[in-house]
């Protein structure tokens, strides 16, 4: 370690772990691989993905909604079920993306060694991580689309601006899948993800204005909430459910993008480290 060796002269240039992502269309066959596996299990997985959010919606929306009645958002009265639906759909995007980018990606990366197999073909690690990130975001979009369909059927919202909410929810999926991949890169086993869910995602769920307005929280919790990406997702999506344009939309969007970019870069660096690259 201490003496320079004779081979230094023709040593390959050491690449920084934090070099810019090297992304290409080679990610597509990897994405397609995940899609093919999922297609075999799509229907049961769809039921699993939307059953839980719908239970929240029905139990809380109609149960609590009857007690709460209306909630005031930006000085405007809103039925509780609409308030909850617009928040919980963001939560569903978060959960679906996180679950896929943690448990499922870890299975492919560590347990099945699928990534190792792919890297023996002309596909780089950066493209594999990109494919996993987009795949988890796609799963979030898929879940969200199914839930939106049910919400339309239940006539919870029929705002035409839901069409704008849809790509935003894909963005929410991208943000949370990028964040989850950071922890995927660090994980030694599945147990590790329990911490992420209980110590991060669960508090996030309660502190991001999904179930009740943030204004009701003590100042410290409000300050904390302002840092959570899910708050910003809710701030973007809820007005669209109410057929309004979000105020400070660019700001909220920029926060989500910042979380996504920083997390993806971090995830990539840590994954490169994990694979000794």
């Amino acid at each position, binding site marked *: *370690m201490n003496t320079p*060796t*004779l*081979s*230094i002269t*023709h*040593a*390959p240039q*050491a*690449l920084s772990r934090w070099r810019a992502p090297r992304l290409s269309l*080679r990610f597509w*066959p*990897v994405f*397609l*691989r995940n899609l*093919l*596996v999922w297609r*075999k299990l799509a229907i049961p997985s769809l039921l699993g993905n939307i059953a839980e959010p719908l239970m929240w919606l029905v139990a809380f929306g109609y149960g609590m909604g009857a007690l709460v009645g209306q909630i005031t958002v930006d000085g405007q009265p809103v039925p509780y079920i609409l308030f909850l639906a617009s928040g919980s759909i963001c939560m569903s995007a978060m959960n679906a993306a996180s679950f896929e980018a943690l448990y499922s990606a870890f299975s492919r990366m560590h347990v*099945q*060694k*699928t990534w*190792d*197999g*792919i*890297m*023996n*073909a*002309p*596909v*780089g690690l950066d493209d594999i991580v990109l494919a996993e990130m987009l795949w988890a975001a796609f799963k979030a979009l898929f879940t969200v689309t199914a839930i939106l369909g049910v919400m339309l059927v239940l006539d919870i919202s029929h705002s035409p601006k839901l069409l704008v909410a849809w790509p935003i929810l894909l963005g929410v999926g991208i943000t949370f899948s990028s964040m989850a991949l950071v922890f995927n890169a660090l994980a030694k086993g599945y147990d590790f993800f329990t911490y992420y869910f209980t110590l991060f995602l669960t508090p996030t769920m309660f502190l991001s204005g999904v179930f009740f307005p943030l204004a009701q929280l003590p100042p410290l919790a409000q300050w904390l909430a302002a840092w959570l990406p899910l708050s910003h997702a809710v701030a973007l999506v809820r007005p669209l459910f109410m057929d309004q344009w979000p105020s400070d939309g660019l700001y909220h969007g920029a926060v989500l993008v910042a979380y996504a970019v920083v997390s993806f870069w971090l995830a990539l660096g840590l994954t490169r480290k994990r*694979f*000794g*690259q």
Partner: protein
Amino acid sequence: MPHIEPSPTPLFQAQHLTKRYGDTDVVQDLSFEIAPGECLGVIGPNGAGKTTTIRMCLGLTVPDGGSITALGLRMPLDALAIKAQLGVVTQLDTLDPDFNCAENLLVYGRYFGLKEAEIKKRIPALLEFASLTSKAKAKPGELSGGMKRRLSLARALVNDPKLLLLDEPTTGLDPQARHLMWERLQLLLQQGKSILLTTHFMDEAERLCSRLLVLDHGKKIAEGTPRDLIAQYLEPDVVEVYGVGALALAESPLRAHASRVEVSGETVFFYTRDSGALMQALHAYPQLRTLHRPANLEDLFLKLTGRQIREDA
């Protein structure tokens, strides 16, 4: 492109490779070449640096020093372009458990940018080559160890590679499966493919490899054709003697008939150039069991790397 005469440059060339993990030199100043159509075997005990070498050849591990060129391209700079022309079988199968055999080939072919129609045309021949035609719809979980390895080999051939890197392709297989694998690899060599093979099995190395590289502690300790290496390092004959009183022979006048005597456990090994005289002398000990055989690669391997079990083995 203008027509270019086949150049004498090797298909694959590694020069002065060095890799260090912490304070351990895993690979030290390792150089080797693979000529077109050649099968180069890399043998060495566990922890000798074989897998690290393969990983460096694939650009998955960046060497601390040295260079690798393959097919006129440089590693790791052109890693993807090189890998597009390589076939790889790793020690542990990385088959997709969710796909059947045919789907495994299809999905893997896509990673090479091959069109679906093109891959589908190749699949029947690949399955046939792997003797898996009847298992096209079976998932890896339903396959035997030998079938899985052959599917891995078929998968490595999906891009019709020029060079195959095989890391212990027959470890853990039963003799039938191993022989079938050997037949297939010989077939590939006949077709003009080049192979880099790591193995623990000396009979495998002897059967398949035109040239061998012996690694120990990350260093190349010998290189040559199997026959040349045996002739260079060993006496032509080995007589193994075991049974009650065998160990005493190691220090007896019989020693004079051998150039080298080794004791391992309850067995005495005589390495000799004059086996006739030694066998004659051994007639005086009818209670002992003897095995007279030509020296082989296993003897060479044990001579070069020692008989002791490695701590990390």
